[in-house]
């Protein structure tokens, strides 16, 4: 064991081995090396049988640099003794590594991808980039309009359904044009702050809006729909990241609770959803009043419609009624929108804005305004009695009619109307597509929810095993307590994507999720019982070989080396893999840590060289103390352990 042995120490062995006296063996060795020395002096080469060849190599003088002071120096010519071991002896000495062969690395990185990476990829898949981008863009954008543009694009990406792009692009372009105008910008600045609130709240809004969208056909919905979708996505991203929700009124937990008590759901979403629809006719109506600066005055008008639909049972009726209104509006809206737009244009012209194009864009930001305002005011609107709602509905209808009435009288440019009619057709088509895509999204979220449920189950199974038996009993209870929260979180995700028509489905989905979770809980309990029965062989932790523990105690008493360590991963050995290769795959391309793996698997491996393909090895979770791949200290210790491992053949 790294001892320095002199000739005296091995004389006994040699004598015993050769069956001669110790003195003879000593004489033999002394004379042997004397002869070698003489031979080297004489011939410059000496071959000892079965050991190797000594050679004298003449080295010419060469320049070098003194390491200490940097001055040049000349290494004089000298003679060097080289030794080349005999082939047999060389192979014998290399026997611990003899099974190792040169391995062709196929890629730059590790040949085998870690399962950890796969796990991360799965998690990342759940939060697509398109989602995550939207909230950031919303928060960062100084004006709403760019945010809207950003929002529209991710929705199209996330929906994947063939949403006709040309429709969105002209609106966006028009939005761009509107941004240049001074009129819109103050509105946006005010709405900015509300956008953040708007982002967090719209869970219920979106669902209901999507539901209502099936029945309503109003051309302005397109833009808010997109924003709603974007809010959906942003909310999804928020939920997944769990960052922004805490700030606003609607925490996911609150929403969860609201989901649990369906009455809350009924109250919250519907009023919110309808206003979106109701806002749209109002939006133009608001503008003629020139409340752009006086956004506060717009709010009450907006809030009143919010309250209109109160209960789910009423949703259908409301939807029908409003649908009737809207259907009336649809026909009317076309003129009314254009009319209001035109009225807007007149007003805009009054405000010395020459361009006629801003009309359409003007609607869009304003349509967002009331939404944001609605979101802010939804809580207030919830409290309002239902009676006022009906009145509000009437007033709204009146307003719409009033808005419609003056419209034809205003300076109507027919070309614009025709354009808008075309737009309406496109938007209707697009809404249909959105409805389809929304269903698609719904199922996608349901799938994600189930995946999340499974992941949480696995995670609990993992966490569960780490703890001691005493803690396990608590854990068997703990997952039961904890998992329902996850269920709620998943429910919150699932219903957001669901239409009113699919409420029943959502319930069924929730039940299936519950079933899944109950099964996972059962699995946890089963695993717990297994752990109790098989205490020594924990699924989660595993003991190192006693030899390593003893060695570490002896050589490095200062290091608290744990006898047990978490299993980071079970690794199935692939063909041609060796311990070092496995270490390289599991420890950030560093090969040094294979000794740990060996001592972690001595129940399977009798020697480090016995790695065969198909074996399942447990990879220890070395942590930062031992497994820091960038720490030279860790590597040195690992090398030491590797040396130790090599001694166990």
């Amino acid at each position, binding site marked *: *064991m*790294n*001892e*320095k*042995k*002199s*000739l005296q120490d*091995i004389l006994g*062995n*040699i*004598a015993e*081995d*050769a*069956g*001669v006296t110790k003195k*003879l*063996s000593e004489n*033999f060795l002394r*004379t*042997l090396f004397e*002869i*070698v*020395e003489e*031979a*080297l*002096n004489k*011939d410059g080469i*000496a*071959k*000892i*049988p*079965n*050991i*190797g060849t*000594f050679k004298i190599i003449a080295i010419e003088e060469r320049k070098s640099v003194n390491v200490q002071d940097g001055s040049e120096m000349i290494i004089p010519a000298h*003679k*060097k*003794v080289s*030794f080349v*071991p005999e082939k047999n*002896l060389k192979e*014998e*000495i*290399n026997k*611990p*590594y003899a099974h*190792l*062969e*040169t*391995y*062709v*690395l196929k890629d730059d990185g590790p040949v085998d991808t870690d399962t950890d990476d796969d796990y991360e990829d799965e998690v990342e898949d759940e939060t697509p980039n398109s989602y995550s981008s939207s909230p950031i863009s919303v928060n960062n954008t100084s004006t709403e309009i760019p945010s809207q543009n950003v929002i529209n694009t991710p929705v199209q990406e996330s929906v994947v359904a063939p949403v006709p792009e040309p429709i969105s692009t002209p609106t966006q372009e028009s939005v761009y044009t509107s941004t240049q105008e001074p009129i819109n910008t103050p509105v946006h600045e005010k709405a900015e702050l509300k956008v953040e609130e708007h982002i967090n709240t719209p869970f219920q809004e979106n669902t209901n809006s999507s539901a209502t969208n099936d029945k309503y056909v109003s051309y302005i919905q397109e833009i808010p729909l997109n924003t709603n979708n974007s809010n959906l996505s942003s909310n999804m991203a928020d939920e997944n990241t769990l960052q922004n929700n805490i700030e606003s009124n609607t925490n996911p937990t609150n929403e969860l609770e609201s989901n649990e008590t369906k009455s809350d759901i009924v109250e919250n979403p519907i009023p919110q959803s309808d206003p979106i629809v109701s806002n749209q006719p109002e939006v133009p109506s608001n503008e003629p009043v020139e409340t752009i600066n006086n956004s506060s005055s717009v709010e009450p008008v907006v809030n009143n419609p919010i309250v209109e639909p109160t209960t789910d049972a009423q949703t259908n009726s409301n939807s029908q009624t409003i649908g009737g209104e809207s259907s009336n509006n649809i026909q009317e809206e076309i003129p009314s929108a254009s009319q209001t737009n035109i009225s807007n244009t007149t007003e805009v012209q009054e405000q010395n804005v020459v361009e006629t194009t801003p009309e359409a864009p003007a609607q869009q930001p304003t349509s967002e305004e009331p939404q944001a305002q609605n979101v802010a005011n939804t809580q207030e609107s919830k409290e309002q009695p239902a009676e006022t709602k009906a009145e509000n509905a009437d007033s709204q209808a009146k307003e719409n009619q009033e808005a419609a009435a003056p419209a034809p009288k205003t300076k109507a440019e027919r070309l614009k109307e025709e354009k808008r009619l075309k737009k309406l057709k496109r938007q209707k088509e697009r809404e249909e597509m959105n409805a389809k895509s929304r269903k698609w999204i719904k199922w996608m979220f349901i799938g994600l929810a189930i995946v999340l449920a499974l992941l949480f189950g696995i995670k609990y199974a993992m966490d569960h095993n780490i703890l001691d038996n005493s803690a396990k009993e608590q854990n068997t209870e703990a997952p039961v307590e904890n998992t329902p929260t996850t269920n709620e979180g998943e429910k919150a995700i699932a219903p957001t994507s669901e239409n009113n028509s699919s409420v029943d489905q959502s319930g069924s989905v929730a039940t299936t999720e519950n079933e899944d979770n109950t099964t996972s809980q059962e699995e946890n309990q089963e695993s717990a019982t297994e752990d109790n029965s098989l205490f020594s062989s924990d699924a989660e932790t595993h003991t190192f070989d006693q030899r390593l523990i003893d060695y570490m105690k002896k050589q490095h008493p200062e290091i608290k080396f744990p006898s047990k360590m978490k299993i980071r991963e079970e690794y199935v050995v692939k063909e041609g893999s060796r311990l*070092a*290769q496995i270490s*390289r795959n599991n420890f950030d391309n560093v*090969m040094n840590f294979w000794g740990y793996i060996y001592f972690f698997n001595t129940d399977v491996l009798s020697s480090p060289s016995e790695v065969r393909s198909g074996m399942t090895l447990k990879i220890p979770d070395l942590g930062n103390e031992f497994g820091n791949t960038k720490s030279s200290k860790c590597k040195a210790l690992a*090398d030491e352990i590797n*040396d130790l491992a*090599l*001694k166990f053949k």
Partner: protein
Amino acid sequence: MNTKEITSEIRKRLQIDAETADALFASFTNCLKEEMLNGNSLSIPGFGIFEARRKKERISINPTTKQRLLSPPKQSLAFKVSAILKDKFNN
């Protein structure tokens, strides 16, 4: 001086027969191997030190094919000449 010359020289000097000489050589190599495998170094006074040197595995690149090869770790027998012997040769 090749192996034959050395064995004959040693037999001549020690006045032993070929069998014992072979046995001694065999046992010496065997002993040396064992010590090396155990990680020990064997110093021969006035001559040098035999030691087993571990060479870590490394990634080498075949210059022609650009293949990245993971060379396995090695253990090889190394000999370090003693200062006394070195001085003898250099003077």
